């Protein structure tokens, strides 16, 4: 019998197999890219929620109030205790930096692009006979590839 070697169809099949191997690998790679972007937003949101939870501990109890959905944006927003003003390297009020396009362009761009917002849902809870504990749900919302995303955490702050 004469050995004919690899036929064209064999090569095509071989190539097809190679392509079939490559496609998932490349798609896996592009998903890992998306994953990184996604995890950046998620992790940023978790950081924001943590930040709010920490500020709640330090602020006067009675000032902890509801911030209803759809929530407040962090950029171009009026002063609050959590995000604005954000920085101040000077020794007086005049040097404060807020999250605006002029003060902090990079952060402003990122927040505006993803439309990051925060909301607080506050309820008084009573574990005993006292009514001096606030149970606070912190919600961070943002938009990612046209989808609405949410990160939620929960803290208790007591008045005593």
């Amino acid at each position: 019998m004469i050995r004919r070697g690899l036929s064209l169809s064999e090569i095509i099949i071989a190539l097809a197999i190679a392509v079939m191997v490559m496609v998932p690998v490349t798609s896996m790679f592009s998903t890992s890219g998306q994953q990184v972007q996604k995890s950046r937003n998620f992790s940023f949101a978790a950081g924001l929620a943590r930040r709010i939870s920490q500020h709640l501990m330090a602020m006067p109890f009675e000032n902890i109030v509801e911030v209803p959905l759809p929530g407040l944006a962090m950029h171009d927003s009026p002063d609050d205790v959590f995000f604005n003003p954000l920085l101040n390297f000077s020794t007086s009020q005049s040097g404060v930096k807020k999250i605006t396009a002029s003060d902090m362009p990079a952060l402003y761009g990122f927040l505006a692009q993803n439309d990051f917002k925060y909301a607080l849902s506050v309820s008084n809870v009573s574990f005993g006979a006292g009514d001096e504990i606030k149970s606070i749900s912190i919600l961070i919302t943002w938009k990612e590839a046209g989808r609405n995303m949410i990160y939620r955490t929960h803290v208790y702050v007591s008045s005593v």
Partner: protein
Amino acid sequence: MKKLFLFLILALCLPMTSQPVMADDENPAIEKEVKVDVDEIKLRSPLEIEQAVMEYMLAFEAYQSARKSSDPEVRGKMVQYMKQYREAYARFLDMMREDNLYEPQKPKNPAGRYNRKHMKQKGSKRQWRATAARQTREKVKKMVEAGASPEAIKATIKESLPAAPMSVDPMDAAGLGQSPAGGPGTGFTRPGDDDDDDDKTTSKTGSNLDSKIPYKPKPIDGPSGSHHPHKPKH
């Protein structure tokens, strides 16, 4: 005559404002693990101890009131209030260290240890009064909210400290015609009995509390690379 009258008032009012507790409701599982040298313990005057506790408690109340206030003036004094609380608490801890009632690396049970010695020396436990000094706490709170200076608060706290021991030695009380559980008509109860039962934890074996070398479990693969975040650097 006046003194006798005052004494009677005190004897009648004190038990009404405070309640006796048997302050040795130790956690049996933990106590079993902690070696306490009873002979080393010093029995200081109870009044001195009660004053120290009352002082740090009231100082904490002042600090806490300032912390929760929304008045910037009041909040501005927070740092001094905290300093006063820390100082008062440090004084109390010093006292406990001197009397061998407390060691930093062992669970705290100062009243329980005091009573062990009391028991050994006098054959009975001292009856401590449960009081959270409610009225004084309220007073301090109101003063802080009204913007009193930390010095004024400190002075008020000093003035409000008990002048006579709040706790009772059952033997002395017996000598004065009082029963250990309180004289008739004083409304003595044993509040420690109704809510302390849940303090008992189940005993688990294995401890090295008294060894200075800490028990070291297997480190987990933490990303910081160190298996203990606050390993003393000294």
